[in-house]
């Protein structure tokens, strides 16, 4: 695309998004903490704020080990998946695996990111998490989960007071809508009014912003436009994240 040549300072990846930077700062904080400080962190926020996207980028940037927890996992599954993600052999028992994980984490210095950590809020899993933390001699562990994660964790004091940083994920702002627009539809020129409209209609939730940018893209494609201005706003089918109300006469 020749007319895109002037856009030389394009955003290349998700790094400038705020939640990505916040999680990066959290990881650095626990990695380079002072002696004697606890080594776990908690990054929590509402669904769709881009926590997992942030986790992915920071996994790449720090060489971390990222595991997304599933609700049906048993303790054995969890340690197996962590071993698998670290690329180390799975132990014969859960205890063996915990030792292997602890050794690998402490020696390699890789942070462990546990996504969907609210699922871990059961007695057995919390004990296991504590074991992993202790056998890794306090290697950085970041729990990423939904908004109520800190309250849920409060029930397990042993884990709760080992958390150094509590960082809430932030809603998107106009600057981030601009970045996402550049990432998701780099071929479109979208005016500031439209971006503001996107932010409002999406209630500042990153996932909905992306959906609405997609709607703009669809609209631009069918109308053959490369520039979206305030005049186009009424014609775009916005996703406002509400269930449709029931129709009359049914």
């Amino acid at each position, binding site marked *: 695309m020749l007319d895109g040549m002037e856009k030389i300072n394009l955003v290349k990846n998700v790094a400038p998004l705020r939640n990505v930077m916040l999680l990066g700062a959290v990881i650095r904080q626990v990695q380079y903490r002072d002696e004697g400080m606890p080594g776990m962190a908690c990054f929590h926020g509402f669904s769709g704020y881009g926590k997992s996207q942030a986790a*992915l980028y920071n996994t*790449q940037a720090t060489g971390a080990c990222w595991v997304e927890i599933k609700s049906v996992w048993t303790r054995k599954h969890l340690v197996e998946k962590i071993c698998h993600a670290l690329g180390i052999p799975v132990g014969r028992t859960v205890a063996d695996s915990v030792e292997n994980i602890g050794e690998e984490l402490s020696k390699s210095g890789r942070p462990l990111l546990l996504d969907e950590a609210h699922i871990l809020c059961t007695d057995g899993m919390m004990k296991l998490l504590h074991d992993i933390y202790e056998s890794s001699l306090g290697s950085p562990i970041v729990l990423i989960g939904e908004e109520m994660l800190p309250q849920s964790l409060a029930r397990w004091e042993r884990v709760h007071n080992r958390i150094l940083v509590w960082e809430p994920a932030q809603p998107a702002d106009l600057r981030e809508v601009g970045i996402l627009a550049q990432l998701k539809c780099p071929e479109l020129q979208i005016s500031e009014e439209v971006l503001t409209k996107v932010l409002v209609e999406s209630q500042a939730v990153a996932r909905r912003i992306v959906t609405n940018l997609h709607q703009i893209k669809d609209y631009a494609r069918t109308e053959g436009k490369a520039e979206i201005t305030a005049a186009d706003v009424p014609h775009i089918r916005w996703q406002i994240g509400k269930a449709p109300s029931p129709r009359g006469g049914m």
Partner: protein
Amino acid sequence: MAPASKPMGRRPADKASAGRQEMWHALKRTPEEITVTAVAEATGVHRSTVLRYLNALTAGGYLEAIPAPAGMPGSWRLIRDVGYHAPRVRADGSAVTQGEITAQIWQAMIGLKRFDFRELMQGASIDIPEATAKDYCKRLLAAGYLRVLVKADPHAGRIARYQLIRPSGPAAPQIQRVRQVYDPNTGAVYPAEGGL
């Protein structure tokens, strides 16, 4: 022409014999006294290869050479243990960066699960050339790692979306020159069909 009995150069990844990983495990068994002979015997790797790797590790700060009396073989001591995975170091001790791009694309595939090639580039922390991201998707698709969710439609300006259907492990599948994909997680080899 090299004689047929002794092939030249490095063997393909799927036919490789013991390498860094095996040498690393062998030297970790005796961290206080590492000798070329012991590592070569434990792994079957040639002595000169072992010596080269030990020297590289020393330059990288992982080992420390213990001076030996004249005429005696030298030995090394492990001073920095980085865990299970062998450090990938060049002769001067710097880290090997080869394979970094595919490693990041693969990690992004595992993290995103559903993606197009642009999202893979955006989820990476290093610059990934567009052609590389596209090509890697194409070859993994041919080898059966991906499923097409949305077909590309150049007229509508739409790029293909894929889903990862074979998340085999943390190490990125390698595209080999012999038109096949080698999976270092399982050791399996998949032919990249379709005349790519």
